[in-house]
């Protein structure tokens, strides 16, 4: 899923300070699962904004809504009236949802309440970690299902760098496992260590971010 965290409150408050009718719009998919922008978080942010506005004597009406997804046009129909009644929308979706809400409601200002982080997994309760970098040409088959692009800080494809110590990455020895240690351990447990002797050629990065904004067109689906 796409993971995100809420922006610092002051940053959000500065963005919306001039609004008189604000709609806080949650997203019911990824950011609900990672507890950053679902119905519950919409309620918390709305209450915090109302309390802060009261303290600072700012007059602002705040409405709340959460839709199934902000990255699909059809789900916006349910909140069209609320969006039209608002000066601006404070979207609690990922960056995709914020932009798409702005495209669906032309002329309406849409502010981001979250900082979108990465494609990750729910490692344990309350902990999310990155697994995929969306490079556009998956190499997981060659590395025992552990991604060197996403899980090595340098995205190295032919073994670890000198900053790998005791299974940890030099970027943050407390928090980050060495991706290549993980790959080695996994390949060893699968009895596939010999495959790592193969040299991986230069990767074509144009399939990911380096190739510009991505687009997928399924001719069989296009109307």
């Amino acid at each position: 899923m796409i993971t995100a965290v809420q922006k610092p409150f002051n940053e959000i408050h500065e963005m919306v300070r001039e609004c008189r009718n604000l709609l806080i719009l949650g997203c019911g998919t990824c950011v609900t699962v990672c507890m950053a922008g679902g119905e519950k978080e919409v309620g918390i942010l709305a209450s915090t904004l109302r309390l802060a506005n009261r303290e600072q004597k700012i007059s602002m009406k705040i409405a709340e809504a959460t839709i199934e997804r902000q990255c699909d046009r059809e789900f916006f129909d349910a909140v069209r009236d609320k969006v039209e009644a608002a000066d601006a929308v404070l979207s609690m979706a990922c960056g995709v949802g914020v932009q798409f809400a702005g495209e669906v409601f032309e002329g309406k200002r849409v502010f981001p309440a979250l900082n979108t982080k990465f494609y990750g997994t729910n490692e344990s309760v309350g902990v999310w970690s990155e697994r995929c970098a969306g490079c556009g040409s998956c190499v997981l088959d060659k590395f025992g299902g552990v991604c060197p692009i996403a899980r090595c800080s340098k995205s190295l494809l032919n073994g670890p760098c000198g900053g790998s110590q005791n299974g940890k990455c030099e970027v943050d020895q407390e928090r980050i496992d060495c991706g290549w240690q993980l790959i080695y351990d996994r390949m060893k447990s699968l009895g596939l260590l010999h495959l790592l002797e193969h040299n991986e050629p230069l990767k074509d990065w144009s399939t990911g971010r380096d190739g510009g904004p991505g687009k997928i067109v399924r001719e069989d689906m296009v109307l």
Partner: protein
Amino acid sequence: MAKKIIAFACENSGLKAIEAVTDPGVLGAVELVRLPCSGKIEIGLVLKCLEEGYPGVLILACPIDNCKFTRGNRRARNRVESARQILRAAGLPEERVHIDFVSSVDSHKVAEIVRSMQQRLAVRTASAVRTASAVGTTGPAGIETGKGAKA
């Protein structure tokens, strides 16, 4: 009439303790909500109570390591800390939310917790009133406002 402190009390400890309090001053200061476990408290609910005008939110949980559901009181403690962080970040007084850990026989301790929370909130209210009255005598542009100001 001003709203009371709202107290969310675990039915296994805090609720029994507060029900045994005899001081009418303490009982009259609190609106009581029974929880099956303090771990049931939610950050959104705490903030909603403040938004609705309750001066303070008190959570009464079982002593640490003595929760019937193993870690409900630790959960409550973490959530209260998160709620206080949210208030701090928004420039609001965090002492409006408080958690304490009591057993079912701690009625004297609960009474003291309520009294000291009342005092903290009263100090805050008094200082807020002083600030408001200071603002009321001289407006942002130095213009006299309020009672006695010339029309």
